């Protein structure tokens, strides 16, 4: 049995219920494993943000805001670098547009402490947002993305394979499919050893069609694992719209037969995402098993790198590299830019008087500088020693250099 609640951007909630009553209602509602969400306009005014988010202390909300900005500016700084520095070698599958998902989810997790206590997340080929939201150091990331010996993973990983166990960031993975299975495997081990950790797997809409999708959810459901599958539906896998690979509108529906909650959430609203994640985390920690959360979201850049982007401008437009079967329309990009997750959250915070506009601007400026500094630091870092390529294959020793006779 599953509880699917549909997210529809067209719906408008006109109820004017005071927030405490609303909270009671939402509690009952959320007890069924669901989160609702409405349009891009200021959510709080209509009261539909939910009780968890409203209870968050100002410091936590401010931190969430900073983290979203950190992702945004890490990425924008790098986009601009790619566009303006011909010698720059780094690349990225950019995350802007989706910040609310990574931050909403990771804010509901335990991100510090011993490896046996920290919650784990598994990321994808589009890892910056997840990594930063989990607490990975952006200086080390910037260095890693540029193949530096002092990078997060000593230059072995680049963007697509970064990992940082120390904060429970189990790693990016360049393959689509197997990640969720491994993540569910981690949840199995955690349950077997009686730990209270939970495991979150991030995956795109593209992961739905993989054979592994079934295996991950089926086994997590059967064994009631502390596992949360956050499916970031940004409408496209590479250049194909998800309707080419998925017969249903809401991928969350797939949860049904497994008897686990399938929740649709507005991925542009960090507080809605947080609420859904918090529910799922509580369920998982209580031994009640997995949840599938589908976050409806969008990526402002193209699948990979910076084609179609201009320095200093957010997003990429009008670039069709091949005679693509279904290339995204530029109007679609603009429509989603109008529901920017950072704007939405900023308005809420100002409205809630967590910060004022000036403080928000100040925060953004500071975070932007932090990103610029990170890339500047990375630029100074040493390159790798070629011969280290035959290290780290096994825990011990090196393998022979077989390119040399």
């Amino acid at each position, binding site marked *: 049995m599953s509880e699917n609640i549909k997210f529809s951007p067209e719906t408008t909630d006109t109820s004017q219920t005071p927030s405490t009553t609303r909270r009671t209602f939402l509690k009952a509602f959320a007890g069924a494993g669901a989160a609702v969400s409405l349009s891009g306009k200021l959510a709080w005014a209509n009261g539909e943000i939910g009780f968890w988010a409203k209870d968050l202390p100002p410091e936590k909300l401010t931190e969430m805001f900073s983290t979203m900005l950190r992702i945004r500016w890490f990425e924008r700084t790098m986009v601009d670098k790619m566009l303006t520095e011909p010698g720059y*070698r780094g*690349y990225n599958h950019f995350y802007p547009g989706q910040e609310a998902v990574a931050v909403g989810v990771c804010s509901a997790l335990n991100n510090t402490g011993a490896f046996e206590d920290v919650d784990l997340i598994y990321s994808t080929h589009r890892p910056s947002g997840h990594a930063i939201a989990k607490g990975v150091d952006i200086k080390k990331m910037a260095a890693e993305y540029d*193949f530096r*010996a002092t990078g997060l993973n000593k*230059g*072995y*990983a*680049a963007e*697509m*394979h970064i990992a940082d166990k120390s904060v429970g960031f189990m790693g990016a*993975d*360049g*393959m*689509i*499919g197997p990640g969720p299975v491994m993540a569910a495997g981690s949840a199995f081990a955690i349950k077997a050893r009686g730990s209270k950790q939970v495991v979150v797997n991030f995956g795109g809409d*593209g*992961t*739905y*069609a*993989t*054979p592994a999708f079934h295996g991950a959810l089926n086994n997590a459901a059967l064994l009631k694992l502390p596992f949360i599958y956050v499916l970031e539906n940004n409408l496209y*896998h*590479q*250049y*194909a719209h998800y309707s*080419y*690979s*998925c017969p249903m509108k809401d991928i969350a529906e797939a949860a049904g037969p497994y008897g686990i909650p399938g929740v649709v959430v507005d991925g542009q609203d960090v507080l809605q995402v947080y609420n859904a994640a918090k529910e799922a985390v509580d369920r998982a920690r209580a031994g009640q098993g997995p949840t599938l959360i589908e976050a409806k979201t969008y990526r402002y850049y193209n699948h990979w790198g910076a084609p179609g982007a201009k320095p200093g401008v957010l997003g990429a437009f009008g670039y069709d590299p*091949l*005679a*693509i*079967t279904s290339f995204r329309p530029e109007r679609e990009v603009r429509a989603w830019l109008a529901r920017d997750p950072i704007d939405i959250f900023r308005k809420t915070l100002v409205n809630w008087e967590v910060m004022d506009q000036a403080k928000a601007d100040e925060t953004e400026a500071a975070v932007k500088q932090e990103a610029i500094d990170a890339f500047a630091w990375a630029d100074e870092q040493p*390159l*790798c*020693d*070629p*011969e*280290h*390529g*035959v290290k780290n*294959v096994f825990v011990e020793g090196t*393998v*022979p*250099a*077989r*390119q*040399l*006779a």
Partner: protein
Amino acid sequence: MARKSWMYSVLEAVQYEMRQDKNMTWIFELTPPVASNPGKPVINLETEFGRSRVVNTGIDEMWMAGCVLGSGLAGSKSVTYIPYQGNCMCFQMIQNHAGKLRHMTGGDAEMPVVFILEMTGQSPGFAGQHSDYEIDTYYAHIPGVKTVIPSTPTDAKGMMVSAIRDPNPIVYLYPAGLRSLVEDVPDEQYETPLDKAAVRIEGGDITIVGSGGSMPEVMKAAEQLQQEGAGVEAIDLRSLKPMDTETLVNSVQKTKRLLTVDQSYYTLCPGAEVIARVAENVDGARFKRIAFPDAPPPASPEMFLWMRPNADHVVAAARKLLD
């Protein structure tokens, strides 16, 4: 005849065959079957043949392989182009089904299908899963499929024609690093055998054998060695299975020196098979082998380029054998 890119040459072959055979299908994922070439009409199989015959799918390479296999079993020629990220997702389908069904059914199952398996371009910077060059061995060990690997646009076209017309399942490896090659390629259809190595350069002092992605470096090295006065016989395997033992043995009978060059991981790389076949048949020869170390490719270009066998590595190894 016109100068053509690799992909244009291949799609020209496919387009022709699909026009002849109204039942033939093509399954793709990321890369639409589209190619353009200066002075030539754009080829777009999807628009020409329509989405009932040419269709993209979700990220499910097991389905892609199973779909062409099932199509073949049902009597339709079929080809799939599997991107390098998925070239082991479909492994079991080819290993345990395509490779065995004909024999297991005493000849009842027919599979006139082609699995184009892209291999990475091996550009520096991508690491592990996006720079690896390893599947030649996995697929060449499978019985019941022919595993071929062209290294020039001309062979790519001729071998594609042969592969489509062959009634057996063909694993057609495509090292995407060769996509930048351009050369004169005939316009008409022609077949290139799927079981013959090509002697690219003849010479009497040393035999150097490569395949697919290693060939450009082998050829570069051969030229340099020739300039140094060595008689190099450069052989392009083209077919890993069946492997053309005769051409290999004849060459080393003559040169008594064999150097193999692979981008695949050293242990059990195609060169191991080449050396073993020759060693079983030629007495008194000397052997060397270079290959990618038994390590995943690291992201850092400094590390990766040091590890990837290149013309300098080939020349150095050849000199040792020639000493």
